[in-house]
């Protein structure tokens, strides 16, 4: 068991630095002594020391399901990691409403869409639709937001045109499909389009999706990125902080890509 503290962070099982992790996987072998040994070696190749095969069962004809525990030798130095993180205090529904009413004195216009070939509206719907996600109601449920959900497979040009016409304060772009990084290209193209049309400084661009994080969104020319597990109140709080702060908003620097 690795016990020497070298400053690196290891998985915590029940003692500091034990590195204990669990893997569950299937191998295309019926249960046998050979299959068990194969599972053990497979785990070792993943960096697990002293692997214990906790279970080996036939889960289909010719396939075995394994649960393996072992001591991961890998360690990371969290101080050497630099990540862009959105630090927004999450507000209650009432606080969001109250701040928009008191500070902005009008509704925030939000336009959302899944762009390009993407037909998966589950993400954008979770954030915008009244019903929301995991008990957290969507932006449509707030009086302070004027929400326009344009749905799926919206072309970048169309989204830009509609958003300008509606006087959007914020545009939410959702990208679920990630094949061959098409989510990156689409999103990047949209930010450049708005830039080219000369109204980038008048609008907040938000990017969301299962493979999106804040750093990626910044890289692609957006103002904020929202990844898996994002709730509508996270987005609402971010918009309130950005659009309803007491300070005069800074002019947004042009994006260089």
């Amino acid at each position: 068991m690795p016990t020497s503290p070298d400053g690196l962070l290891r998985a915590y099982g029940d003692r500091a630095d034990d590195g204990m992790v669990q893997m569950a996987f299937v191998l295309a072998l019926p249960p046998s002594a050979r299959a068990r040994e194969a599972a053990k070696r497979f785990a070792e190749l993943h960096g697990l020391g002293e692997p214990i095969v906790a279970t080996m069962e036939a889960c289909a004809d010719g396939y075995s399901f394994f649960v393996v525990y072992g001591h991961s030798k890998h360690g990371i130095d969290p101080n050497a990691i630099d990540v862009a993180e959105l630090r927004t205090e999450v507000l209650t529904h009432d606080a969001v409403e109250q701040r928009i009413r008191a500070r902005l004195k009008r509704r925030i216009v939000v336009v959302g869409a899944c762009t390009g070939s993407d037909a998966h509206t589950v993400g954008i719907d979770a954030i915008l639709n009244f019903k929301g996600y995991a008990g957290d109601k969507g932006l449509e449920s707030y009086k302070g937001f004027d929400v326009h959900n344009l749905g799926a497979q919206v072309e970048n040009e169309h989204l830009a045109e509609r958003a300008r016409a509606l006087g959007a304060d914020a545009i939410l772009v959702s990208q679920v499909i990630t094949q061959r990084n098409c989510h990156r290209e689409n999103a990047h193209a949209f930010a450049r389009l708005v830039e080219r049309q000369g109204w980038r400084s008048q609008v907040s661009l938000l990017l969301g999706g299962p493979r999106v994080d804040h750093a990626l969104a910044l890289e692609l020319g957006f103002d904020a990125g929202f990844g898996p597990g994002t709730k509508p109140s996270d987005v609402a709080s971010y918009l309130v902080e950005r659009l309803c702060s007491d300070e005069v908003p800074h002019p947004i620097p042009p994006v260089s890509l």
Partner: protein
Amino acid sequence: MIMGTVPLDARQVDRCRALASEIADDVQRYVDNHTTVGVERAILRAYGASGITEGGIPIVNVAVDRYAKAGLLGHGMAYFLGRAILGGARNPQEATERLAFSPEIDPGEGAPAARSASDALVPATESALARIDAARDERGSRQERLVAGVPPLKYVIVATGNIYDDAVQAKAAASAGADVVAVIRATAQSLLDYVPEGATTEGFGGTFATQENFKIIRRALDEVGEHTGRYVMQTNYSSGLCMAEIAWMASVERLDMLLNDAMYGILFRDINMCRTLIDQYVSRKFIARSGIVINTGEDNYLTTANAVDKAHTVLASQFINEALALRAGLREEQMGLGHAYEIDPWLEDSFLLEIAQAQLTRQIFDRHPIKWMPPTKHKTGDIFLSHVHDAMFDLAGVATHQTIELLGMFSEAIHNPLLMDRYLALKKTRYVHGACRHLGEEIEFKKDGIIARRAILVLDEAVELLAEVKRETIWESIGRGAFADVKRTRTGGKGFAGVVQRNAAYVNPLLSALEEG
């Protein structure tokens, strides 16, 4: 609490209680005429004796072993302690050191007489009681100030071997919603005839129970309690050869629960039955005074015996444990009688049988904080199925109003629970308990349904077993394997050499004071 009930024949329940009472009287007659090295050490500790020799042996062990070897223990250590004080020792600590190390042993002859020795201990007896009472009152005031958990109380174990890691994990578990945290003892501590001293960082399968370790975990749980506004309970093990000493330590260190069951030691640790029944009685005298809740170990019977065929042995043992606990002055509210969810999960309607047993236990022992144990025997390395199995256990527990629920761990068959395992177990239980909070109050059991018929059968079988045990005496029936399919003899097992018959003039004013209440 309004709930659905299974039909119970009250006369059968009364019969069980009457039989258990006679069984317990027989045990108590024996206990009242004997003492043990463990009991005598506990008395010295309660008077304030502490410390170890250079070789690491507790001074109370040196003193007691010396008088036991000389054949003098039948007088009671308090007799010699009182005489040492009359002979000039300034306090019980100094008196104990004299008993342990003085060049000449006190042969106990001549003056001062037993009565004078006992009188010399009046102030020490009062302060021994005051120390227990102060800890009890401190617990009471914290419980008044902080929010208690809602039954079924979520009980988890930590078992790293290192008390400082245990403290980290105990706090993590409490923060994740645990109501009760138990530190599992190092394997085989139950067979040590002394209590280790100080904070310990090495132990296999668990962590040594020591007075210092008790303090460390109490401090950790108090911190979480103050931080979260919840009262978090601490549990340890008053079992094995040092039952009484550990019960005293727990009393003064403000533990909330103790695993405390002679039957467990007899059957599963092969501790001599005479020894452990005497130790248990004295341990329960401390426990009664301190307000600690005991947990009994009937659940373990089903880990060796078949949980369907031998369910009645659990019920019978619960009646016996209740009767013995009453004789030690425990209130019903202190009796966490144990049972378990150990029926083969693949047996058709196994869940119905579990519900029947849990409901039966709840109804018969209606004031008792029933201790409900999770599946272990049929667990495999399939942690995913195991998690579901534990969720069903949670469902049965909340639906039948069990009081203390030790949470199952999906890694049960693999290792001592990791921090993650405990977190997920708590999360799942919070969900099941919350989602089904009042389910038990909505249920009515069919009068002649599977559950009702099962409950009646188990009770009837328990009556039969108790009648047999009464006829044979508990000593003989354990000898033939009536419980857990394990056989033990009256003079066999560990620790029998430490049992001593009391003299007519046995002196133990502290025990007498505890008996007077």
